[in-house]
């Protein structure tokens, strides 16, 4: 069985989410990595070094810049003539492209898999993670997106795959990239951070959110996350959001501050190795999943904690 893995990259380097995707794919068969983009020779070289990748397929053309699903999906769909499965990370990048590939080859996608149970059997979360379904695909070919926190990252070095150029297709001109407003941050990315400090609505304002959490995050070398309530209240930008409708994270340590622990939020962080909760309400549901809890006023605790660390 040969598996086509869609590599997520920024034009220069490969995103961490891809490495976990390679691990998931390698449970199904021989991994071929698809690098699509503009001037992505360097990314192709990097993909060839990922441990477990047998072959790298590079589709390089100006119209493949910016990962537009309309141009990337047909390239992948065509390659599926020679592959048995298509696997992409369940990030906004993969979620945008994979279903388009699936429909082009008339396959029902298996979304957001947590584990590979067999060549056609997988587990996946449903109902915001309140239930885990084991599903069996009866399609001849599989299209899969991978919840990347469910799999270890493949080592990014040690491999020496062959590199092949493939047909880059064409653009029908129906969609174009206009702009990207990147959230500026010198901190680690949420989905790959070892430590995350995350704030909820209890912070009361954007100013207090940042003036209290940022120094703590800096001290710990942590990424900053937020609950949906904090994002909706405008305390933090939307891509800080951890939860079923935001990012799914699984750091070594997740520190939830002023977050009550709605199901929606827990679905995004409950696979963290250690959960620390700070909340003034000792009945808050977050304490039911926390390994270490501290009941108290975050406005006193956070500055003291930052100072003492």
């Amino acid at each position: 069985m040969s598996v086509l893995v869609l590599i997520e990259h920024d034009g220069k380097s490969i995103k961490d989410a891809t490495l976990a995707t390679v691990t998931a794919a390698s449970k199904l068969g021989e991994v071929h990595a698809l690098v699509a983009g503009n001037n992505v020779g360097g990314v192709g070289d990097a993909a060839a070094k990922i441990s477990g990748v047998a072959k790298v397929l590079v589709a390089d053309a100006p119209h493949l810049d910016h990962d537009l699903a309309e141009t990337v999906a047909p390239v992948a769909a065509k390659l599926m003539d020679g592959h048995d499965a298509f696997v992409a990370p369940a990030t906004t990048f993969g979620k945008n492209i994979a279903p388009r590939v699936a429909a082009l080859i008339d396959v029902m996608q298996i979304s957001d898999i947590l584990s590979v149970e067999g060549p056609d059997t997988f587990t996946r979360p449903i109902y915001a993670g309140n239930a885990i379904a084991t599903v069996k695909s009866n399609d001849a070919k599989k299209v899969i997106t991978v919840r990347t926190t469910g799999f270890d990252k493949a080592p990014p070095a040690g491999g020496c795959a062959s590199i092949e150029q493939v047909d880059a297709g064409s653009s029908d001109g129906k969609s174009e990239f206009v702009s990207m407003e990147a959230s500026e941050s010198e901190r680690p990315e949420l989905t790959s951070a070892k430590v995350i400090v995350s704030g909820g609505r209890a912070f009361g304002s954007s100013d207090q959110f940042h003036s209290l959490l940022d120094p703590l995050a800096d001290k710990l070398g942590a990424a900053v996350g937020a609950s949906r309530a904090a994002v909706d209240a405008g305390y933090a930008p939307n891509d800080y959001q951890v939860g079923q409708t935001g990012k799914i994270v699984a750091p070594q340590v997740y520190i939830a501050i002023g977050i009550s622990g709605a199901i929606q939020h827990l679905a995004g962080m409950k696979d963290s190795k250690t959960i620390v909760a700070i909340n003034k309400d000792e009945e808050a549901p977050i304490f039911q999943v926390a390994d270490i809890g501290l009941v108290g006023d975050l406005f006193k605790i956070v500055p003291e904690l930052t100072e003492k660390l």
Partner: protein
Amino acid sequence: MKLLVAVKRVIDFNVKPRVKMDGSGVDLANVKMSMNPFDEIAVEEAIRLKEKGVATEIVAVSIGPAKAQETLRTALAMGADRAILVQTDEEVEPLAVAKILAKIAEEEQPQMIILGKQAIDDDNNATGQMLAALLGWPQGTFASKVEASGDAVTVTREVDGGLETVKLKLPAVVTTDLRLNEPRYASLPNIMKAKSKPLAIKSPGDCGVDVARRLETLKVVEPAKRQAGIKVGSVDELVERLHGLGIAK
């Protein structure tokens, strides 16, 4: 321009789903059902485009059991003009839903189809992208801003790492993210008025679509529960614990 919005009847987002004892699925008997929250946002966005004078007609479509008529009536009460129910008691997967919607799009010739980015029951996040692929239309997924002008729509998308803006030639598919808008509540007079708006009923067979499932659910279980740990009494104790975890010097 004409707009198509797709809506799904799902468990109400405030209800905690319970897994059935026999592991066959989630218990939906006597559970409150509502319109999928992301689809409500889709309906709202369509109505706003109509209020701005961009859209002239809104057709709401649902694929589901007879009771999905209630969901469509909600869409009509919010401001959709007419509704189509493709009635089936089968659980229809995103690929088949996309095929049915593509067939309806061929008949109705909308300029834009707006859908929720995912349904909160099966959490697939696939139907909109699949529909766009089947129609050969461009797609603007996870939209937080939609601006239609002339023969194009500009969509700002919520992506990992920020906000991406794309420009799509119409006709196009747009899927909604949470922050696109806040859906309105239907007023009582509008709920009354919605009862007399047209609602057509079709079957998947009318659309020529085979809805046989490709994915078989073998079992459904509750996720592993985490055990509550210890509570510490002071910041000093917490600092000590964090040192113990090796994350602070």
